[in-house]
């Protein structure tokens, strides 16, 4: 008998008889979260939120502030005058190793934990939001949901090969619990919040 069948046989023999499929409803109870909560939480975990009203404001911000390194890339056509526009899977992921700033967009964010949801659609490569030195995300305030349960309601309506919640810059506290921003992923995360 294969290991697979051996394992499945023993599991079937040993598993407890029944446990009901849990039903729960957290959606209504916690609709107290707002874009203000999102801003506070993301700021609290090391992110920066820049409220904006037009793409031109974002262009100006990028032009004025994202100048610590030569390479700024984006998947947003409206920003192609201030950043290199990426095309779907046009390069090997390794070719992104010199990206200083990546500006990407998202359609979903979560107020309770400051996370934005990013899928590979629209990213030139899955590694982009990790390999860049600094990450920026464009988000419509109307796309912020209250909590993770509400987020999965939205996520379940779509399909993806890869998707990730990103909440702030990469970080570690492995050395004596001292928080350091910029472990292996980006050292900073900026969210342009379209009001």
């Amino acid at each position, binding site marked *: 008998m294969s290991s697979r069948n051996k394992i499945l046989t023993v599991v079937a023999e040993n598993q407890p008889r029944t*446990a009901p499929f*849990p039903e*729960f409803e*957290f959606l209504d109870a916690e609709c107290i979260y707002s874009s203000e909560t999102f801003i506070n939480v993301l700021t609290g975990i090391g992110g920066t939120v820049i409220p904006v009203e037009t793409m031109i404001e974002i262009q100006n911000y990028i032009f004025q502030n994202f100048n610590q390194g030569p390479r700024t890339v984006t998947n947003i056509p409206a920003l192609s005058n201030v950043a290199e526009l990426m095309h779907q899977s046009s390069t090997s*992921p390794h070719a992104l190793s010199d990206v200083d700033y990546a500006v990407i967009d998202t359609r979903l964010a979560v107020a309770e934990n400051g996370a934005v949801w990013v899928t590979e659609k629209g990213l030139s490569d899955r590694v982009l939001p990790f*390999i860049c030195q600094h990450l920026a995300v464009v988000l419509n305030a109307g796309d912020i949901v209250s909590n*993770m349960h509400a987020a999965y309601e939205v996520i379940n309506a779509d399909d993806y090969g890869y998707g990730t919640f*990103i909440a702030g810059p990469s970080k570690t506290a492995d050395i004596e619990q001292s928080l350091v921003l910029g472990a292996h992923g980006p050292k900073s995360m900026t969210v342009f919040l379209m009001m």
Partner: protein
Amino acid sequence: MKTTDKDHAALANEFNKDAPRVDWHDETLWWVRQKRDNAVKKIPGWEELREAGSQIKNNVLANLSGYLKQFEANAQANGVHVHWAIDAKEHNEIVLELLQSNGVKKIVKSKSMLTEECNLNEYLNLNGVDVIDTDLGEFIVQLANEHPSHIVLPCIHKKKEEIGELFHQHLGTPAGNADPVFLTETARRHLRETFLTRKAALTGVNFAVAETGEFVVCTNEGNADMGAHLADIHIASMGIEKIIPKRKHLGVFLRVLARSATGQPVTTYSSHFKTPRPGASTHIVIVDNGRSKQLGREDFRNSLKCIRCGACMNTCPVYRRSGGHSYNNAIAGPIGSILAPNLDMKKHADLPFASTLCGSCTNVCPVKIDIHDQLYKWRQVIVKSGHAPVPKKAAMGAMTRVLSSPVSYKVAGKLGRLMMKRAPFAVNNQFNPWYKQRELPVVPENSFGEWYKKNRNNKPKDI
């Protein structure tokens, strides 16, 4: 993983030789526990969330074989290769075979307690494969040639000066520089080069969704994603208990995991891997290694609900004051002490006794595992199976004889009081563990029985 024959008490003794360091370790972990409390208090309905997490996991255990099959079918439909390993040995062989057939001699690995449990690094090294652990804490313990002492904070036992010295020796940083920002930046630069040159990446799995065949990996550093997205082959190792029924259940677990672990609202990255990256391949190794046996132990099966947050360790007064290495098991602390005896009861017979049974672990567990009850139950199983340590058995035997006879109880009490009065050195010495860091109380003149006999007569009988 059992690297020494010393038991928990002996290893804890070694850890306790440096009292200021023990205090520091204790306070650091208690601080993490307090961060957890602060995060939890901000969530209305936290207890309902714990209850939901617990019920989902109960449902998983009761339907595990079906969910495993469903997960396998969906993962395969997503283009992911699924492998099954009955034990640690088979897991390691599968990983090695995958690497060898692709001509890979160097890999990056993000945190996976399962690969620690399987001793994968040692096995791969013996077979000519170089493994770099990329989680900063694991990278540090790997440089020190040690194992993680905590499942979430692998090098919580190390002082920054020691880490600075390790970096000085291995990475050529200036001697004496122990600045966490500087050291983290050094590791970042060093490992970036490694990420860019490795053809295979190994990760753990936090949750595997039966409904969709996707799996979720949570990190703060971004190391799992950096490894997986740059490599040609992504191997993900998971225990059979990592299954959850539906994607929407991630909403519950991602809300409780990081809050319980470190007090963060969520880990920086919660990555959902469903299909392989175009041009790359993904392999999942589903590992049993004793879990199906634990599933059959009615009193202990709940331990399989664990989501590896580490909250029980941070709150445990014994863990905080004995250090993770004293448990001599890949997973330390209260949860490790109920998982380890399943793998080898004789080898790990000491662990269920490394607890005060205070119940704090049970109170903080985000999926409501009855940890302290299980510790108590393991003690009974271990003693009945004849695996209790000899001195403990002898002491318990003597106690049984004394307590079962009123006469011998009274005589023993008298002798004890006499001894403490006339020859205090007989108990106040280093051979008596109860005398360590304690002063014994003043000896009472008589026992309660004697006192009662005397004083009862002073009172009218009809009251």
